[in-house]
């Protein structure tokens, strides 16, 4: 699934940072797992909006994963206001895993 953004260049930087955020159970980063849906930027207001999902609602690791995503974005865009929101519409499914992610899981 492709990540939607209103600023492709900044989104690339954000996704690179989010590749360091790993789902502890699966061992795969949230970008390749397909958990990131949208990243928008309001440069005038210095705001970053990230919409992401979890593999399952009420995932016990959910809060840790969203906190880690928020921290990663905060470190990448210091001084900007980061908002991470969860969406389960559409719900995550296996088709959202990237090719790299599939290769990683095939190896494990």
């Amino acid at each position, binding site marked *: 699934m492709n990540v*939607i953004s209103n600023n492709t260049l900044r989104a690339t930087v954000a996704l690179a940072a989010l590749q*360091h*955020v790993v789902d*502890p*159970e*699966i*061992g795969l980063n949230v970008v390749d797992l397909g958990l990131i*849906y*949208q990243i928008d930027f309001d440069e005038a207001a210095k705001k970053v909006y990230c*919409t992401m999902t*979890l*593999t*399952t*609602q*009420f*995932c*016990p*690791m*959910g*809060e*840790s*994963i*969203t*906190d*880690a*995503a*928020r*921290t*990663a974005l905060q470190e990448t865009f210091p001084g900007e206001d980061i908002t991470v*929101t*969860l*969406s*389960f*519409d*559409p719900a995550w499914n*296996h088709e959202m*895993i990237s090719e790299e992610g*599939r290769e990683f*899981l*095939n*190896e*494990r």
Partner: protein
Amino acid sequence: MFTTTGDTATATTSHKVVLPFYLYAAIAFLVATVLLLLSANNITEHYFLPHTLAIVHIMALGWGTMIILGASHQLVPVLIEGKLYSDTLALLCFILAALGIPLLSYGFYVFDMGWPAQWGACLVVSAIVLYLVNLAMSMLQSKKENVHAVFIFTSALWLLTTATVGLLLLHNFTQPILSRNSLDYLALHAHFGIVGWFLLLVTGVGSRLIPMFLISKYGNDRQLWWIYGCINAGLLLFIYVFLYSGNRTLLLLPVLLVASGIVLFGNFCYKAYRQRIRKKVDEQMRLSLLSVAMMVLPVVFLVVIVGFLLVADKSQTRLAIAYGFIIFFGWITAIILGMTFKTLPFIVWNKVYHHLAGKGKTPNPKDLFSNVLFQWMGIAYLLGFVLFTAGIVAGHVFTLQLAAVLLITCSVLYNWNVLQLLLHKPDRT
């Protein structure tokens, strides 16, 4: 574009509520295996012996039920996609059960069906009522309905039925309130618990967790509804045949229905395994999958037992004891041994490292326990299980003692790993 739900969708049950259940269950498992060794010389005489009754109830309530209650308080939000209604009710449920189980087991051990056992049973029933209320309220709050939630709620109803019937049977020993002797109802009480509680719950929760941990593409709600129907219909038919029909041949019908449910569940797990995206299957999942295969064993024993009843018109005491053993120490224990280390590490990780998420290097949840200890535990368990079953069937005391030592080894290693997890502190270096 996307409907956002905010942070409420990540709220999970407090670890303070869940962890005591895990610790209690681990200790109960150790106690049960030690009692198994102490009772090895007379365990094959009859299934209605004080020590055997105590072991069965420690295994069924202290080990199986306590860990399932703990895990389900954690997993209910995932299964019903909604928050647990009350952490306080969950904690009260733990306290009542934790007090009730030793009292009940002590009553059985000294064969005193008076106040310790009766009060123990009352406390256990109260704990189950609280669990059921918590579950019902959580489900009412949740907007989504799903097959797994129906499994878990129905199994809790069967658990309450089991415990209530157990309480009635206890009172019936000292003050006759039922039309027959308590001993006559044992099969009914036992199968409410084994099939209605354990089997229904394990199939309902397992059908959600096994594909989830395997990252499998497979899902089939229609098949799950069939499993649900087979197990419940089998149990209801068993009640009818047991209470109202003198025709023993009819006993094979409920066995067939429950066996069909088990086969369908095995088929579900097999397809989930085949369609998994994550190719490497860890030891914890392997043991859990093995437990699914082990579900067939009691069915085979049951068919043989019913067969003997029909053909030779006599009960097979050793086979009946082996049947009980391979249920509690077989698939129920195997799935708990596996699933403990798929769930507990994440609960502990969340407790210890949640505030450090994304702020530095943290260990993986699977690194919080020793996989080497887990492997040795698995070997000791499988050897102990096979030997003890053989020992019961052959009536060989030394084999039983040797097997009990192996099972104690398994429970010690299990406790060691569980304690290592529960006492885990972040590395300060």
